[in-house]
């Protein structure tokens, strides 16, 4: 009898694709880097949502985090742009083609230092983009300088003592009227995946401030950006489960046990209550939560703030549904007669 090797067929998603259709090049980041974990969750989220690779673009600035789009969604177009300038590039691309979904990956230096201006204006315009900050409090590629999210009085081998208060990216996002603000931890893959899925269904800028430890330069347990600190101080606000619009909610919850956040495309983010009551649609409560978290030195994770009130940039601009990039000459160039009419104004 000839032995046969049973080959298991790879599992297909609703788009008929396997998970390997969503992978990218092998990572060149350090082994154990939080960013690699996030790349994996981006792959999982896109696969599980059955997004076709051509329907999504990936964008980044400069830094370790911004290199990572090469390591996921290899069949999607992408643009690794300039330090701190991904928001403007994303704005142009998503006006030119509003049919695309977009994931932007940035870091704490890329967002909270050089890119703070563009970040705030991205939110002000509410450009539909999943904006992930892989937040590790340190500059990795340039070997260990403090970033603007580094803890006050923290000491690093290269950079010495940091005398400044950290920028709280989630707080900045709420102040800038962002309608989807989440904080998570690279060491919590399930929460990261569910939040990314929900963010991809949000028609506006969705900010995911994900603590993503730098194992080389900033992973000592006393750092709020380390794995150890994250594990020990993490307090999930709720258990998050994303339910796409075409699926039934499978698990029965007790009444009052959950809050449902309904997203633009009909899908739902189910927030299952843990220790405390938390209403992510209350802006003041969200700010209070972040203040308390800082005072108590805890890492509060989950959907911190949600509001679908603001129009997206494409809505504000009154754009047609089609991609502007698709328009042909007959649609782009006004007719010959119109030139005579318009020049009559100048006679």
């Amino acid at each position, binding site marked *: 009898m000839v032995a046969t090797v049973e080959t298991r067929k790879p599992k297909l998603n609703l788009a008929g694709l396997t998970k390997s259709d969503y992978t990218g*090049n092998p990572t060149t980041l350090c082994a154990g880097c939080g960013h690699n974990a996030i790349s994996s969750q981006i792959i999982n989220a896109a696969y599980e949502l059955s997004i*076709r*690779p*051509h*329907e999504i*673009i990936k964008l980044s600035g400069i830094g370790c985090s911004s*290199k990572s*789009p*090469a390591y996921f969604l*290899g*069949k*999607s*177009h*992408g*643009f*690794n*742009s*300039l330090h701190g*300038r991904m*928001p*403007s*590039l*994303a*704005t*142009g*691309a*998503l*006006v*030119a*083609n509003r*049919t*695309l979904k977009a994931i932007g990956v940035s870091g704490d230096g890329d967002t909270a230092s050089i890119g703070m*201006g*563009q970040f705030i*204006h991205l939110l002000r315009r509410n450009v539909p983009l999943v904006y992930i900050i892989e937040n590790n409090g340190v500059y990795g590629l340039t070997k260990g300088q403090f970033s603007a999210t580094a803890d006050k009085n923290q000491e690093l081998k290269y950079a010495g003592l940091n005398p400044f208060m950290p920028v709280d990216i989630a707080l900045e996002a709420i102040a800038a009227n962002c309608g989807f603000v989440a904080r998570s931890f690279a060491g919590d893959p399930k929460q990261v995946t569910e939040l990314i899925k929900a963010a991809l269904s949000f028609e506006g800028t969705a900010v995911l401030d994900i603590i993503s430890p730098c194992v080389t330069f900033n992973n000592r347990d006393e750092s709020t950006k380390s794995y150890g600190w994250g594990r020990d101080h993490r307090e999930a606000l709720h258990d998050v489960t994303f339910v796409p619009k075409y699926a039934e909610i499978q698990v029965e919850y007790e009444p009052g046990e959950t809050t449902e956040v309904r997203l633009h495309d009909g899908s739902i983010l189910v927030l299952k209550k843990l220790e405390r009551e938390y209403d992510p649609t209350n802006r003041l409560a969200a700010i209070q939560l972040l203040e308390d978290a800082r005072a108590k030195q805890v890492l509060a994770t989950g959907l911190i703030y949600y509001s679908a009130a603001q129009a997206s940039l494409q809505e504000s*601009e*009154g*754009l*047609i*549904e089609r*991609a*502007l*990039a*698709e*328009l042909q*000459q007959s*649609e*782009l*160039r*006004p007719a*010959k007669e*119109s*030139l*005579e009419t*318009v*020049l009559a*104004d*100048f*006679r």
Partner: protein
Amino acid sequence: MSEVLSLTRPKTVGEVVNDFSMMVATANGSGSQTSNLALVRALFRMGIPVSGKNLFPSNIQGLPTWYTIRASSSGHTARRDTVEILVAMNAPTFAEDLAGLASGGACFYADDLRLPMQRDDIVFYPMPIKELVKQASPPKELKDYIANMGYVGIVARLLEIELEAVRGALDTHFGGRQKPIEMNMGMIIRAAEWAEQNLEKRDPFRVARAHQTEGKILIEGNTAGALGAIYGGVSFASWYPITPASSFADAVREYLPKLRSDGQNGKNSFAVIQAEDEIAAIGMAIGAGWAGARAMTSTSGPGISLMAEFAGLAFFAEVPIVVWDIQRMGPSTGLPTRTSQGDLLFVRYLGHGDTKNVILLPGSVAECFEFGWRAFDLAERLQTPVFVLSDLDLGMNLWMSDPFEYPNAPMDRGKVLSEADLERLGQFARYRDIDGDGITYRTLPGNKHPLSAWFARGTGHNEQASYSERPDDWEQNLTRLMRKAETARQYVPHPVLSGSGTEQIGLIYYGSTESAVQEALERMEQGGLRLDGLRLRAVPFTGEVKEFIRSHEVVYVLEMNHDGQMHKLLQLEVPEFATKLRSVTHNNGIPLTARWIATALQTAEED
């Protein structure tokens, strides 16, 4: 009423008809622009070749501003050094303005200025502006505006500018809105009637209806460029407010909805976005250009400085965008309301490392329109940023022109592969030079074919657009980019030759100096100095440029910057003839005059 309208009559001895330069001196923020434009457009409507130039301060209200209007029976529209008619409405500058008036000229002055009229070689005309305003009793907030209509009426009467032509000019200015037209015309007629009854004509200047503007238009270069961009199919324009470029974006915003509204159910097939700064403005344009839209931004020198890093990215990642630079005086903030051609070298090499940008140099409002659409074809053909260098004089002043010609070529969208193309080819490498011209094939985001994806980046890359630090990949890619920069010569507009082409002396120039140069060439010819002119319209240069330099003994290079930037570029480009090239520059913020050019070249020739 009819007696105040001018009558056609033959020119008498000593009269100067349709030839003068008038300067209106006011304080800015007083609404004098409407009055001055009314005079310019009225002359234009009477068929008289005319141009208007605003010499304004970087200020909102109160500082002196001068507007010069030139009427020219020979059709010249450049600025002139001499002024024959002064309209003096601003006391602080009166003494200086009066001193600058040519002998035999006329000075119209607001009679409340109460300043010494210490010249006996000119004619003075008092204007009772305050009294006329009092009689007109306009709403308080409109008093200054109405006051300025006073000089329009008096000057029109004395120069015989037809009041119906003035009315037509106001009709254009106010877009046919009767209320402001009537209010302003009321004051103009009142003032003209006062002049008719109280002033005796004692100067030699007047106008008479001519037929030299028939079929022509009167337009600013920024509006012309914006219209050109629209006929070039612009879908995305981003900008940040800056003098003298803001009116470019204003015109894009004004005309895009009118010209591109068809069949979109009230939705827009375009977006014009005011960015938070020029860095974001160009970043947005690059994002849109990468995604496949025809994208542009418009700015001036300080904005160009901020755009440097992104310009290098667009050059290196090979993203088509169009950038208009309406040049003003630098370095630094410089003179925001004064003109210059000082950004040439900076823009040519904008970006760190070995960048070489394509530049278009419009020399007229018609070319602003033409390059407005052509720039997109070039950008998409070459997959690179294309810069259009206009300036404040061309961009913000009114120029006479033949009507613009509708684009005479279909849009060139360049080398873009569709799903079907990819299916047929069976392979794709974003930066592989298949045709040997340095221009590679691109795909757009949203392309459904599994082979289409590539990762744009400003980092070193190989043919597949993958990150690479390999020395051979770097060299190969940069060599190809330089090959592409050479290919650009085949696509850019050719220079324009004037003169016989057989003279010994040549003059190379570009941009807004065109009108002054043409007038200077005539002047010099009358004085016995004949030159061939070559007006450059693009960088890199086409073959004719080298040939022009080779075939002339001496070639002057005229431009409005201190260092002779085009002169330097030409020396780099044709080192074998570098010693033939002589730099002639003038750079004080004021447009060149024919007299200055002719004197400079005649003096140089005598030396």
